């Protein structure tokens, strides 16, 4: 039984509120031709009001802010009435597209309607290393717009060294000055990579651990937590930035934009390292909802998707937030766009791309898995880590 069937038939009927909850916003939105796009702020470049993105795509966008939490997508799109609310949405690739497609929440894409699809990185083509992260049952359900390999941010001003191992995160000299992300996906995967590569635990696949392996990783974190190693578990972009910028923590496993913004905000030398054990790689994808297709928003969606696969977007997201572009030819593009990208920015873009290449080449890397096989074990043990 699809989860949606139960939800609609029993919960909504019981509460008697389906018409109110789904009908009111749906009716209000139906009169607008804007693409109702459920996405986080990191999905845009240019102006903060999406005007630059709208201008580039040639469509109207009604953006609705979204967090990075995977459960939020499930709650809205599978349990709730997300299909009545959103035409398109973003989330993590490599699991979320499978979950949403299996519940008929998103629809298959026709990549022939996206001219820049010809420009997408080869790893997304059929048989490529990241091909599965946008497909369900062999069908393309999403297009990628950013990716990265998460690493360790550190305050170089205070530490005075360039760590190249996750060891520092668990090192007693940083007791009470280290932070992890409050999300079992990246935190457990990166810790598993560290434990596996240093021979501390026998883990076959850090992306898809067995129940015993999850337990081992979580018990390691619980021990560390009880010893007072972690100052806190950061939650959300601003929280991560504040912790590093205020020097509450000196080392943190975090997203690259957090390191970039924390450095800019504090004026301190906060750097992003390359860990020899490996990193969790991930991407973010854009999907067309079933409701969006039913409301005839396909044209708008494909125009926006085309922007996301353009070097125009790739160069700007890399320069602004440090995310990896998903298309070829970004370096060549910025060399021709000397007015938009001055010499310093062009050099920074090349430097970031080189470091990303270095991180992505580490053999111990593992791909993010939003819905690992033993997800219950992940969730239950993560709850114990949080509660410890």
């Amino acid at each position, binding site marked *: *039984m699809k*989860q949606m069937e*139960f*939800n609609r038939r*029993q919960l909504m009927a*019981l*509460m008697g509120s389906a018409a109110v909850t789904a009908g009111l916003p749906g009716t209000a939105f139906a009169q607008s031709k804007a693409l109702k796009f459920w996405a986080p702020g990191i999905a845009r470049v240019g102006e903060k009001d999406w005007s630059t993105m709208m201008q580039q795509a040639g469509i109207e966008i009604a953006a609705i802010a979204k967090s990075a*939490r995977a*459960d939020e997508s*499930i*709650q809205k799109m*599978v*349990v709730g009435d997300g299909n009545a609310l959103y035409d398109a949405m973003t989330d993590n690739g490599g699991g979320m597209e499978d*979950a949403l497609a299996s*519940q008929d929440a998103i629809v298959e894409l026709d990549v022939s309607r996206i001219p820049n699809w010809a420009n997408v990185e080869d790893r997304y083509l059929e048989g490529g290393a990241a091909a599965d992260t946008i497909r369900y049952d062999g069908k393309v359900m999403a297009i990628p717009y950013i990716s990265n390999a998460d690493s360790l941010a550190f305050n170089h001003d205070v530490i005075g060294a360039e760590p190249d191992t996750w060891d520092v995160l668990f090192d007693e000299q940083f007791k*009470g000055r280290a932070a992890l992300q409050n999300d079992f996906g990246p935190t457990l995967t990166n810790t598993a990579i560290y434990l596996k590569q240093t021979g501390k635990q026998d883990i076959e696949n850090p992306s898809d651990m067995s129940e015993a392996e999850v337990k081992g990783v979580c018990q390691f974190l619980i021990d560390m*937590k009880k010893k*007072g190693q*972690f*100052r*806190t*578990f950061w*939650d959300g972009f601003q*929280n991560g930035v*504040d912790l590093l910028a*205020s*020097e*509450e923590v000196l080392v943190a496993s975090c997203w690259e934009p957090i390191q970039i913004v924390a450095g800019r905000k504090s004026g301190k030398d906060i750097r992003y390292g390359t860990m020899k054990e490996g990193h969790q790689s991930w991407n973010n994808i854009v999907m067309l909802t079933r409701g969006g297709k039913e409301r005839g928003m396909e044209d708008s969606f494909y125009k926006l998707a085309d922007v996301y696969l353009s070097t125009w977007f790739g160069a700007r997201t890399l320069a602004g937030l440090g995310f990896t572009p998903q298309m070829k030819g970004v370096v060549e593009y910025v060399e021709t766009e000397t007015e938009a990208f001055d010499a310093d920015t062009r050099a920074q873009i090349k430097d970031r791309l080189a470091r990303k290449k270095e991180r992505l080449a580490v053999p111990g890397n593992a791909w993010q898995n939003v819905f690992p096989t033993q*997800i219950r074990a992940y*969730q*239950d043990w*993560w*709850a*114990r880590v*949080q*509660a*410890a």
Partner: protein
Amino acid sequence: MSVDVTTESAGRDSTAGDYRPALSERLGRWVFYIPVVFMLLFFALPMALTVVFSLFERTMFWMEPAITFKAYENFFFSARLENFLDSMYYSSIAVLICFVFGFPIAVFLRKSVPKVAQHRVILLFILPFMVSEIIRIFALRPVLQRNGLVNTTLLELGVVDEPITALIYTHTGVIIGEVLSFLPFIVFAGFLAMEAVPKYIFEVCDDLGAGPVNRFIDVILPLAAPGIFAGCVFIFVNGIGVALLPNILGGPGAVNAGLIATQAITALDFPLAMAVSAIMMATLMSLLYIGHRIFDLTKVLAPIN
């Protein structure tokens, strides 16, 4: 003929023994049922559903009808129970601090501020509540953090040599947040409770030579007890229920019931979230029952009557 019938029936309507109340009067009677309907719709029904859903079986993304106590087992036989009890303990400390600081303010307002100005002064305590709770709590970070306002001031004054790190990302941080967020509730409740303490009581106590401590413990406290209890319960329940506080100000290990429920939702474990909510409600109802048995909480509204 028809004219006769109308005239006849009109005459019958006008007799005193056949009085029909006006529509507004008839509707007026039903108005008294509105609170009952409100309680049923917005309290009893949601609570009943919460308990029912807490017995459902968890599925991959949602839950399906069943009668299982797995969610309760998950709560009572894990670190969650310990966290829940810890949050009750820390919340009790916040209640105590709020009482120590807040109730004297209420007494002062009733005793020393002229009656015409009392409500204006109490309004000052409402003003901070016009700002969103998340902003108020988040704003404490730059004040309490390592290089925040408090530490910078203490360091510059030479009071401390090192920043105090216990002010945030600890249980202490959560208690500070609870006190600053909920202090006005004890002031309001205390202010209302002090209605039950006539002003002449203070004069009588003075005349009889009762000192401030005896006056407070033997006279004011018993009279104002129902209102104080209501305020304390409000702070206590918020302390264990508002997930924002441990989330923003707490560190590892600072988890309250609200955060446990939030984490359960994040893990898509809806029956567990429902079970935590049901346990919280049971805790609240038990407290209110005990409080009512001891203090008779209807007295809280006595001044309004």
